[in-house]
C-alpha cells in the first residue's frame, strides 16, 4: 500500500521531484525552473540524450541506494519502455522511487 496522499507522502514525493529536477538540470544544462513533474525523460520530447540519460540513471541508482535505502535497477527492458517506464516523466520517476521506498520501509 502506497500512502502517496498522506501529508508525509506528499512531502517525500515533492522532495523526490525536486531532487530529480536538480539532477536533470545538471546533466542537461536546462533551466531548473523549466522542469516539472510533466517533463519527459525519454522519448522524442525529452531533452535527455544518451549521455545525459545514462548519467541520470546512474545518479538515480546511487541516490536510491544511499538516500532511500532501496535498490533501483535500471537494467530492465521495462525501464526504457515508452508505455510503462518509470522514466516517462519526472513525476512518474519520483512516484516509482517513492513506491520502492514504501515497499522497502513501509
Amino acid at each position, binding site marked *: 500500500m502506497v500512502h502517496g496522499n498522506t501529508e508525509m507522502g506528499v512531502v517525500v514525493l515533492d522532495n523526490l521531484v525536486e531532487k530529480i529536477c536538480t539532477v536533470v538540470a545538471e546533466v542537461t544544462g536546462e533551466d531548473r525552473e523549466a522542469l516539472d513533474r510533466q517533463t519527459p525523460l525519454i522519448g522524442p520530447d525529452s531533452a535527455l540524450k544518451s549521455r545525459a540519460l545514462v548519467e541520470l540513471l*546512474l545518479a538515480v541508482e546511487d541516490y536510491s541506494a544511499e538516500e532511500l535505502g532501496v535498490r533501483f535497477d535500471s537494467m530492465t527492458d521495462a525501464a526504457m519502455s515508452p508505455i510503462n517506464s518509470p522514466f516517462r516523466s519526472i513525476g512518474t520517476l519520483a512516484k516509482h522511487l517513492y513506491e520502492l521506498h514504501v515497499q522497502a520501509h513501509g
Partner: protein
Amino acid sequence: MLASGTVNLPQSRLLVVTGASRGLGVALSLAALETGYRVIGVARSAVAGLPYEVRACDVSDAGQVAKLFRSLHHESGLYGLINAAGIASMNLTLTTPPETMQRLVATNLLGTMYCSSAMGRLLARRGCGRIINFSSIAVPLGLKGEAVYVGAKSGIEGFSRAFAREMADFNVTVNVVAPGPMRTALIQGVPEPAIETLVRSQVVPRMAQPEDLWHLVAFLLDEGSSMLSGQVFHLGGV
C-alpha cells in the same frame, strides 16, 4: 622483468582482471602488479597463493557478475578492466555439440559483455577508464575448425567497437587485443605444425610471449592512450 619501463606508474589505480587464475590472466595480473597497478582478479573459483586477491565469479552468469561489480562500487582508484577470461574448443562446427557452442558463446562473448557493462557503469561514474577485451588472430584468418570460437570472438570485436562509442561520452576507452597463438592451455591439443604455420603467417613471424602481450595492454592502459578506442590490435600482425 615483464613490466619494465612500459607505462607511467599508476600506484593508485585498480585493475580488474578476469580469467586471473591461469594462463594469460595470471601473466597480465603479475605484470600489472609489477608495474604498480593494484589488481583484483576474477576467476570461477577463489584461488589462494597468488600475490593479488582473486574473487570467485563465473563471468557467464549475469547475476554473479552484477554482484561482483556491485561489491567494487566503493573501491578507490577503479580504472581498468582486462577481460582475459576465455575458453576454446577446436572442433568442426558439424561435430560441435550445442552445449559446447553455448558454453563458448556464454563465457567468451556474454562474459565479456556482462563484465564490460558492469564495469562501464562504475567507470562512467568516475569519468575515465579503460576496458580491454580479447579476441584472436583466428577471427581475421577464419581458421578452419574454430568457427564457433571465431563466431564468439567476432562478436567481441563488434561489441567492443560499438560499446567504445557509447563509453566515449565518459572518457572510457574500449579496445580489443587479438593475439596470435601463445603458449597457454587454450592451444593445448592444436598440432604443432598448425601452430607453426599460423606463427609464420604473422607480420612478425615469431610466437608472442606474455611480455609482448603486456606491452600492448600497458600501452592501451596508459593515460596517453585516451584517443585510442574502438580498435582491434592484432599482436604479431595479420
